[in-house]
């Protein structure tokens, strides 16, 4: 503090002193307002301020205000409340002045008062006058004041309303928003209609920021006047349809506060919310995820349904619990309950579970958010997975939760609570992170106890020894509460795991000699519980404990010991009466619970050993009769009547023995977190284990899925939206088509396929949409482009396959992979096989027409839209049948599945004529249709797996030009030794890009490159694909070159995965075996050099045959060797015990053979063998395939 400031303060202090003195001197008549009369010195001092330059300086520093406030405080304590209004005269005057700096200073002081919690309401009239002040900061502070006090001064607050109403019409969106914000924050009931109007208007404002503010205003108005609910729901409905990320979080918040029960409002916005989620600000994410969890619980089926039905765990209960809610099924329900087991399995057989694609969408889109820096977001995703994901997938959240545990201790506290609940249900999930729950001596006690809880939950036969060793360290801690908790934890481990019961018991007995009484007491209590489980083996422990009664003073422990002795007095017949004798001596000094147990002990001894203890018992009962505590007196009276035979003793005394010495069941030591998961995890209610106000109950899974079509959106314009998404190169108008196509999709697939075929059709549909949407959003477009291209080709290929089939019977298991099946298909496997083969032929007919059509397209080079129309017409060609009830659901699912695959992103050949190479390869393919299979290009057998797209140039880097590439797996016709690389340019800039070409290739020795022809012009918003060839020389070295536009050059590089360095060749099983042997022998002694064998465990999802084939062929450009063909010919040979999948190919440059075989055994065990002359390629390939199979 500067000396000057000190000087300035002096008069004030002095003034106060003087005034106090005056007060005391007894100017009684002025007592009502004595302290600061308007003409007092203080007033003068303030009057002087404007003229005094020093004062301005004084006022602007924060520190001075602080001093000021203290003085005020001091003043306040001296003067009475009545005087307070006058004390603010200086401030009023400042507010009335026409200098902004003075006003500002006054407002700052007033706000500082508010912040400190001082009452400044009397200044309201003076402040509200300044609501229209030009100075922004003054205005802001006035707003702050208004919002704080408007509720108390409703009439005066109305003066300000017109200012805000004017603000609502301002051309600047920020002013509109802030006016609405303040207006809605003024809690004055009279203006409810004005607020309502303002909100409605703002909800359709052009600016998303204003709309966001409107969303914020909704709960404010609702809390002010709940009767506006219906109107507000309309606004919410409107805002829910908003397409921007800015609004999404706020409106869902409003939804949760106003109408959380109106889950139906979400249907149409569900997919949009899922897709926008990652770009919403973090707080909004939390709210949306929590809401979607609830939504999903009402709309989808339990993904763990099958498992929970089969096991007799709690899951089953939950499943049937949901039945109970359903009144209509009550009858059926009861029946079902009677024959639970059989019915359960029947259900499983009847309806194999297929996850709704929307359910999958939610899981997929939330998963990356586990990486958020915001603990609340991570927790929200974690609870979503816990409540919604299939068992096998829940594991992913463990890592993220363990990460949160390294955060602030409050975060740890909340996370540990949730982990404790989760670890009961899903112990395996956290087992790998056991050590992360070890306790440090510096942890706060509440954290220690929670960690202990988790450790106990995680304990099992394998890790118990490590955990017990840890516990041993904890027992020595100085924190006695924690030690007590540890002892209880040991007790729980001992009850849960029989193997260690004796060890634990011995350990606890040792603790009985601990110096700390609390420790001993806690041990006694726990030992008591443990002994109850097997008392006969442990009479020595009971004896030992009997001795302890001399020393232990903790009542609970004494009581426990006495109970034990009484209960097992037969095991210690000599000691028990002696203990009773000692206790009788000290009876009057004991605590109540101990007294009760003494009476109990006496009663039990009297019944078993009345000779020795009769007198003692009488004595004890007499003492108890005159006890101060009525419970004890009652007990004594009751027991006396029961055990001491008298003339008129009631009927009960006959049963005294039975009453007292009945076998008592051992207590079950349970976790306090058991069954807490009926609260939504991460919620306040869960933490408190009590329902908090406004908590929305997490509903049980429905038994039958509600109609999924409610989520279909007619005109999903939302996809244009968020520019962050634009960052991901999503072109605004594209998804529009994709979706409308998705709409037409269902009719198409439902109509074209016959009833029997529908199963397999939807299977293939699911494959396409599944993979399509799984692919990153960023390359969705190009992906789907290639997909479509692929699809068409696939159909042709299928046709070829069909031809092969016709020549020699090929089991359809072979042709199926060629259509690139997905996991989902394998889940549907329970479908009768015959049906699917039938469907195949049907599908084929279908595809024939389609492919012929695509030929047409090619020749005519129609525009995209036209193609689309055409497709639609083909779709509507077959006579549309009325939708059948039975298949309805499945078809609906299909409609969702088809969501992506008809994305009209142009197939390269249609977009541009530049694509000579590819189209020429298409031509060869088409030729293949009419030729014999000798000409059949090997590619035709390649499964049309999804091509992975890689980014070559990011949009931002490329200044609007983004480039992606993929390995098209087509033969590169100009040079067969080159790998074809399809490159797709997208110009998302506003101007057109000219003369796109490549130059200055920097290549490793031996590598060659065949440039793509220059693209002269790429108009804004257009996409074009070209094909180039690169001879990688059978190495995975990157090819570096420059990509040039008319203005810029970009250095880019293409690095091939090893799997793309080969091309498929067709061979039979016998040929394969021969080649394999040849390869092995060719190196003579070095045998084994070119064979690499790895054992692996297949991931659960990829145990099916199709999955294996699909994954291998996706990882490497190989073709499948038809394994069944030989088998078919030679019937007598028994099929091999385990199926072997063989794949063949050769490297592109040198043509060396690459042979891959995968032997699958039971339980997902498998063996992978790769034979290749090129060792490097072989090893890398093994790695890649391993990864593909185990991931």
């Amino acid at each position, binding site marked *: 503090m500067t000396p000057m400031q000190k000087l300035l303060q002096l008069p004030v202090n002095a003034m106060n002193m003087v005034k106090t003195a005056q007060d005391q001197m007894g100017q009684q008549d002025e007592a009502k307002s004595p302290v600061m009369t308007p003409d007092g010195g203080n007033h003068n001092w303030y009057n002087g301020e404007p003229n005094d330059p020093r004062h301005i300086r004084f006022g602007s520093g924060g520190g001075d205000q602080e001093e000021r406030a203290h003085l005020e405080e001091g003043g306040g304590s001296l003067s009475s409340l009545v005087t307070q209004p006058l004390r603010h005269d200086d401030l009023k005057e400042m507010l009335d002045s026409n200098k902004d700096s003075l006003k500002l200073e006054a407002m700052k002081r007033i706000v500082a008062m508010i912040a400190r919690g001082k009452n400044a309401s009397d200044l309201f009239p003076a402040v509200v006058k300044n609501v229209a002040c030009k100075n922004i900061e003054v205005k802001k502070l006035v707003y702050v004041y208004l919002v704080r006090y408007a509720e108390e001064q409703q009439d005066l607050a109305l003066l300000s309303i017109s200012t805000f109403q004017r603000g609502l019409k301002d051309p600047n969106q920020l002013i509109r928003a802030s006016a609405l914000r303040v207006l809605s924050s003024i809690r004055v009931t009279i203006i409810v209609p004005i607020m309502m109007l303002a909100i409605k208007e703002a909800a359709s404002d052009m600016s998303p920021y204003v709309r966001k503010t409107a969303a914020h205003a909704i709960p404010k108005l609702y809390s002010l006047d709940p009767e506006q609910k219906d109107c507000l729901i309309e606004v919410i409905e409107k805002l829910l349809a908003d397409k921007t990320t800015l609004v999404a979080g706020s409106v869902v918040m409003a939804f949760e506060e106003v109408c959380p029960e109106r889950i139906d409002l979400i249907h149409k916005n569900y997919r949009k919310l899922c897709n926008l989620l990652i770009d919403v600000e973090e707080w909004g994410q939390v709210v949306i995820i929590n809401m979607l969890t609830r939504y999903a619980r009402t709309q989808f089926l339990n993904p763990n349904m099958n498992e929970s039905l089969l096991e007799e765990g709690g899951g089953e209960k939950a499943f049937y619990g949901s039945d109970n809610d359903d009144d209509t099924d009550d009858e059926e329900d009861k029946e079902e309950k009677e024959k639970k087991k059989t019915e359960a399995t029947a259900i499983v057989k009847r309806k194999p579970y297929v996850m709704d694609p929307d359910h999958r969408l939610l899981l997929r889109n939330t998963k990356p958010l586990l990486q958020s820096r915001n603990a609340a977001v991570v927790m929200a995703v974690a609870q979503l997975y816990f409540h919604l994901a299939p068992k096998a997938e829940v594991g992913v959240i463990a890592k993220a939760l363990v990460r949160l545990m390294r955060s602030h201790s409050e975060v740890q506290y909340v996370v540990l609570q949730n982990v404790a609940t989760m670890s009961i249900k899903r112990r395996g999930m956290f087992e790998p992170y056991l050590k992360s729950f070890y306790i440090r001596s510096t942890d706060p006690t509440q954290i220690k106890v929670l960690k202990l809880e988790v450790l106990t939950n995680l304990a099992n036969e394998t890790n118990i020894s490590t955990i017990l060793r840890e516990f041993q360290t904890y027992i020595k801690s100085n924190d006695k509460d924690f030690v007590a908790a540890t002892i209880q934890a040991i007790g729980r481990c001992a009850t849960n795991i029989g193997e260690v019961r004796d060890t634990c018991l011995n350990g606890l007995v040792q603790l009985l000699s601990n110096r700390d009484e609390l420790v001993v007491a806690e041990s006694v209590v726990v030992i008591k519980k443990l002994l109850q489980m097997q008392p006969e083996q442990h009479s020595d422990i009971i004896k030992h404990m009997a001795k302890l009664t001399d020393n232990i003073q903790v009542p609970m422990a004494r009581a426990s010991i006495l109970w034990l002795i009484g209960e097992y007095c037969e095991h210690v017949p000599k000691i028990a009466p002696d203990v009773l004798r000692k206790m009788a001596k000290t009876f009057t000094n004991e605590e109540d619970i101990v007294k009760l147990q003494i009476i109990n002990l006496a009663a039990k001894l009297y019944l078993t050993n009345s000779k020795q203890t009769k007198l003692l018992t009488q004595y004890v009962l007499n003492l108890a009769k005159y006890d101060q505590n009525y419970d004890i007196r009652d007990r004594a009276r009751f027991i006396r009547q029961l055990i001491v035979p008298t003339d008129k003793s009631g009927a009960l005394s006959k049963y005294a023995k039975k009453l007292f010495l009945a076998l008592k069941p051992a207590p079950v030591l349970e976790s306090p977190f058991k069954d807490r998961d009926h609260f939504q995890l991460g919620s306040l209610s869960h933490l408190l284990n009590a329902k908090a106000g406004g908590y929305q109950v997490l509903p049980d899974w429905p038994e039958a899925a509600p109609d999924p079509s409610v989520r279909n959106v007619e005109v999903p314009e939302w996809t244009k939206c*968020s520019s962050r998404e634009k960052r991901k190169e999503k072109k605004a108008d594209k998804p529009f088509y994709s979706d409308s196509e998705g709409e037409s999709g269902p009719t198409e697939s439902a109509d074209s396929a016959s009833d029997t075929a529908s199963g397999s059709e939807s299977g293939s549909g699911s494959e396409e949409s599944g993979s399509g949407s799984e692919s990153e959003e960023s390359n969705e477009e190009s992906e789907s482009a290639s997909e479509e291209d692929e699809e068409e080709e696939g159909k042709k290929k299928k046709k070829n396959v069909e031809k092969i089939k016709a020549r020699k019977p090929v089991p359809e298991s072979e042709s199926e992979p060629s259509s690139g099946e997905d996991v989902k298909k394998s889940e549907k496997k329970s479908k009768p096989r015959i049906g699917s083969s039938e469907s195949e032929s049907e599908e084929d007919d279908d595809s024939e027409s389609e492919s012929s059509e695509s030929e047409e397209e090619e020749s005519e080079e129609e525009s995209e839209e036209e193609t689309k129309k055409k497709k639609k017409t083909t779709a509507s060609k077959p006579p549309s049948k009325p939708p059948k009830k039975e298949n309805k659901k499945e078809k609906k699912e299909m409609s969702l599945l088809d969501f992506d695959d008809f994305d009209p992103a142009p197939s390269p050949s249609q977009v541009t004529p530049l694509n000579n190479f590819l189209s020429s390869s298409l031509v060869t393919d088409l030729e293949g249709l009419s030729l014999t299979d000798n000409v059949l290009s090997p590619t035709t057998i390649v499964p049309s797996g999804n091509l992975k797209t890689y980014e070559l140039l990011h949009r931002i880097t490329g200044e609007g030009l983004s480039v992606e590439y993929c390995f098209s797996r087509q033969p590169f016709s100009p040079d067969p030794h080159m790998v074809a690389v399809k490159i797709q340019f997208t110009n998302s800039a506003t101007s057109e890009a000219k003369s796109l070409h490549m130059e200055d290739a920097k290549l490793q020795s031996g590598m060659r490159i065949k440039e793509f022809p220059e693209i002269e012009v790429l108009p804004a918003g257009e996409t074009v694909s070209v094909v180039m060839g690169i001879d990688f020389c059978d190495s995975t070295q990157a090819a570096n070159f420059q990509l040039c536009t008319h203005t810029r050059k970009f250095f880019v590089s293409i690095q091939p995965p090893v799997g793309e360095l080969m091309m498929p060749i067709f061979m039979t099983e016998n040929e394969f075996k021969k080649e394999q042997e040849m390869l092995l022998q060719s190196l003579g002694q070095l045998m084994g050099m070119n064979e690499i064998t790895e054992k692996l465990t297949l991931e659960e999802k990829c145990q099916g045959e199709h999955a294996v084939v699909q994954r291998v062929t996706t990882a490497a450009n190989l073709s499948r060797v038809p394994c069944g063909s030989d088998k078919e010919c030679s019937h007598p040979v028994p099929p091999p015990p385990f199926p072997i999948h063989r794949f063949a190919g050769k490297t592109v440059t040198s043509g060396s053979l690459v042979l891959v075989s995968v032997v699958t055994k039971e339980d997902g065990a498998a063996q992978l063998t790769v034979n290749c002359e090129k060792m490097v390629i072989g090893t890398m390939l093994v790695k890649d395939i391993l990864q593909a199979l185990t991931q």
Partner: protein
Amino acid sequence: MINSLFLINPSGEIFLEKHWKSVVSRSVCDYFLEAKEKALEPEDVPPVIHTPHHYLISIYRDKLFFLSVIQTEVPPLFVIEFLHRVAEMIQDYFGECSETVVKDHMVMVYELLEEMLDNGFPLATESNVLKEMIRPPTILRSVVNTLTGTSNVGDTLPTGQLSTIPWRRAGVRYTNNEAYFDVVEEIDAILDQSGTTVFAEIQGVVEACVKLSGMPDLTLSFMNPRLLDDVSFHPCVRYKLWESERVLSFIPPDGNFTLMTYHVNAQNLVAIPVYVKQSISFFECGSDGRLDVTVGPKQTMGKTVEGVMVTVHLPKTILSINLTATQGSYTYDNGTKLLVWDIGKLNPQKLPNLRGSLSLQAGAPKPEENPSLNIDLKIQQLAISGLKVNRLDMFGEKYKPFKGVKYITKAGKFQVRT
């Protein structure tokens, strides 16, 4: 959601209150103060307290309690995370988060709180957006403000809130364009008596200080991204690119921020840079004990270990201690029984040692547990996991920025049990 916020100092004084909805009387804090009285340490106060009409969620940070009052169901972490953001915001604005700082800038803090929440729901929590609306104080600006009567409130309207990149303010200009990245790794470990590792892991964080003009798009790549097991990012980082290519691609916020935190793969063995030889013993009969601690370098990758500090919470029954240190100095607070031995740089030739006698209160029993030692240390120019930044590329802007990377290894929760 969040109804009110109270800032409370350790002695229980409420020095700031802010209400986002109807005013809640500050008497609600009594429940909290009661719980605080009961707790031995400020950290032991339960973060969530249930009162008849409200729920109190509090954090303890920088010797201050941030207490929020809520009335309805809300994820507790949501509130806790927000409270920490408030603390970080204060730290960011005023250089430190303390009672004096808040009292000095009462109005500004209040204005900031007003902007951060609307009706209890977070509105603007990004530091860049807030700074656009309310400029942080600098010495120069406060002088200018005093002379001209202008203020700290931005006179331009904040456009950051409207942007799709809310974390970066628009129109950033620097004469020197620089980007610095600090890779800071912390070793969390528990060693047992014999020196074997019970548990060890490495937590890393990449702190960035980016002062670049315009809208730079940065790409940071690592030599060995496979090391990173579990990561979390600032919202600016593009998840997808990390997933596909293991590079960090982002448009950075302006100024200081935490780019990512990571956890190193658990399979990798953690190199423990120091070893500790210790013996703390109390004699059964006499009221006496001995302490002997030696610290030496273990796996340091050829770097010097600096800033070594040993902290011991001695048992409550200790009366006095008499120790001598061969290197550095020790302080002992008899009130809290906290012994701090500040060693400084580790010299491999001459190992620092602290030994001497401890005397217990007369008649007090021998403590059962020996106190564990908490080690603090620092190694410059080394990331103990071996993580290396490969390169930083900038796109979108024409100038050439100055780039720098620094590595530091520290001890996190590094505890030696005795």
